């Protein structure tokens, strides 16, 4: 649990660094602190975790794994923030601080053992993000993103809370273990309040992860926010949302599978179709990524629909693969946008000729997102399909395959633009930070794709 504390302290520290205008120390300090938190988290691996803080939190392997990937992704994102924040605002320290606070909230979200902590984690994360989304104060798009995110986020929080309340009403407790005990102890006589509570929780959580029909905020917010923040939201935040979702259902609601499964099944399919089909006809790469992130939510929901022993593993791998590939995509987007000033597909034309390395890493990322073998994305999809098939959701998987095919279409558009379309363009300036992040991410993507063994056996 020390990593949570580390993070919180780090956030405040960074804020102070900003106050004292130690701009150059911000990034190293943040990264160092994150690395420390990461190490501290990993050290607790297989520590035979018990609920701590009066049963409020449980730092088990599940939590550690997701903490690790979230911190890790954040580090990658911050590595490419080197000149980014400076270019859009002078209050650089706030960025780091807010991101760190948000990350702290995320840590709470992935390791809660009490619904109170779920709520608190979600809110810590969200409130920071509301600010981050609108941090470019003079930019209308950023404003709009912040407002939309905020209004709808707050709205959905209401449902989350109402759900929690109803659960409390039915069980008299917020503790996950006790809720589970309640479910097990009353196989037949579960209160209607409880069922309604589950439904409302589904609504609240679906909003947080951006599943249809609660996804509407996602594309707009992702598009309007500064790209790095979008990267953070679509990777780390999404991963955390899923971890929270999964944790709750895995721990408490698994026995009531028959009740909520059909609903989630429909949501999952709807999400897939909305995400993929809409992504097809986008001109902006960033907006396409937003829709693609919706579609990936659809795949990840499989793990919950077909809840089982493999679920956490599947979500973990999927989220890892997805996060890393997305970070590459956003990183390249930042570079391209910096050069051409636009984020549509045409800006990528001819990239392969000028910067084969960047183009190659983006290709790997796109192939990973599309789920082509020898990339991590394939392993993720493969596990999702396996999980769903194991529960005989054959039609779901067939429709998912249909969506995967649609997905390939729009991911290939970028590759097509980079390799097969020519354009007059200059070499893109890319710092060594970028190169490192891109190369390293591509490498991880391929390594997981080729030898998934070392990561797939965590749980």
């Amino acid at each position, binding site marked *: 649990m020390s990593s949570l504390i580390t993070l919180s302290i780090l956030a405040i520290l960074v804020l102070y660094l900003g106050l004292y205008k130690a701009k150059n120390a911000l990034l190293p300090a943040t990264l160092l602190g994150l690395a420390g938190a990461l190490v501290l988290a990993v050290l607790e691996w297989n520590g035979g975790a018990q609920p701590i803080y009066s049963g409020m939190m449980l730092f088990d392997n599940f939590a550690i794994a997701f903490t690790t990937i979230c911190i890790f992704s954040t580090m990658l994102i911050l590595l490419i923030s080197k000149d980014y924040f400076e270019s859009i605002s002078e209050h650089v320290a706030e960025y780091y601080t807010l991101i760190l606070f948000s990350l702290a909230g995320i840590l709470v979200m992935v390791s809660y053992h009490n619904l109170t902590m779920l*709520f608190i984690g979600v809110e810590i994360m969200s*409130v920071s993000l509301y600010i981050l989304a609108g941090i470019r104060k003079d930019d209308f798009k950023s*404003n709009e993103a912040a407002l939309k995110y905020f209004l709808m986020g707050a709205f959905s929080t209401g449902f989350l809370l*109402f759900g929690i309340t109803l659960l409390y009403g039915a069980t008299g407790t917020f503790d996950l273990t006790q809720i589970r005990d309640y479910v097990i102890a009353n196989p037949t006589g579960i209160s209607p309040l409880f069922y309604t509570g589950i439904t409302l929780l589904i609504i609240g959580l679906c909003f947080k992860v951006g599943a249809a029909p609660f996804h509407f905020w996602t594309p707009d917010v992702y598009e309007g926010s500064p790209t790095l923040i979008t990267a953070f939201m679509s990777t780390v935040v999404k991963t955390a949302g899923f971890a929270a979702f999964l944790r709750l259902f895995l721990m408490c609601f698994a026995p009531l599978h028959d009740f909520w499964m059909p609903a989630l099944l429909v949501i999952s399919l709807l999400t897939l179709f909305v995400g993929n089909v809409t992504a097809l006809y986008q001109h902006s790469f960033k907006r396409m990524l937003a829709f693609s992130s919706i579609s990936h939510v659809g795949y990840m929901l499989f793990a919950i629909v077909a809840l089982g022993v493999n679920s956490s593993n599947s979500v973990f791998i999927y989220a890892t693969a997805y996060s890393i590939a997305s970070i590459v995509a956003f990183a390249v987007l930042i570079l391209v946008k910096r050069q051409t000033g636009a984020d549509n597909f045409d800006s990528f034309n001819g990239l392969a000729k000028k910067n084969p390395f960047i183009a190659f890493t983006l290709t790997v990322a796109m192939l990973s997102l599309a789920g082509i073998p020898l990339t991590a994305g394939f392993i993720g999809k493969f596990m999702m399909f396996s999980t769903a098939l194991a529960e005989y959701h054959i039609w779901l998987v067939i429709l998912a395959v249909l969506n995967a095919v649609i997905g390939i279409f729009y991911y290939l558009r970028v590759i097509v633009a980079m390799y097969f379309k020519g354009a007059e363009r200059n070499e893109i300036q890319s710092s060594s930070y970028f190169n490192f992040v891109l190369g390293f991410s591509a490498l991880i993507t391929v390594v997981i794709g080729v030898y998934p063994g070392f990561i797939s056996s965590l749980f």
Partner: protein
Amino acid sequence: MENVTQALQGVPLNHYILLSAIIFAIGVIGVLIRRNAIVIFMSIELMLNAVNLLLTAFSVHHNDASGQIFVFFIMALAAAEVAVGLAIIVMIFRNTNSTDVNILNKLKW
């Protein structure tokens, strides 16, 4: 205090649930039909308060304090949210001279 608790416990739980549900629904409808960001925000607060009310009722019903503690958390975080939310609305008002949410629809499709 004892008396109050007893008196409160005398009211059937269903009434609380119904009441909160109605308040919550009013909040939702408010969000749904109003276009002014501040009013929408207020409606959301109404929803949160419906939750608070219900939590308290359950807390009493179960004779368990944690529900009421939860209410404090909600209030605290709602306050934080208000701070951020109002800031955002102010920022937007500065830029657009309006708090109509539908004015902001640059991001679409």
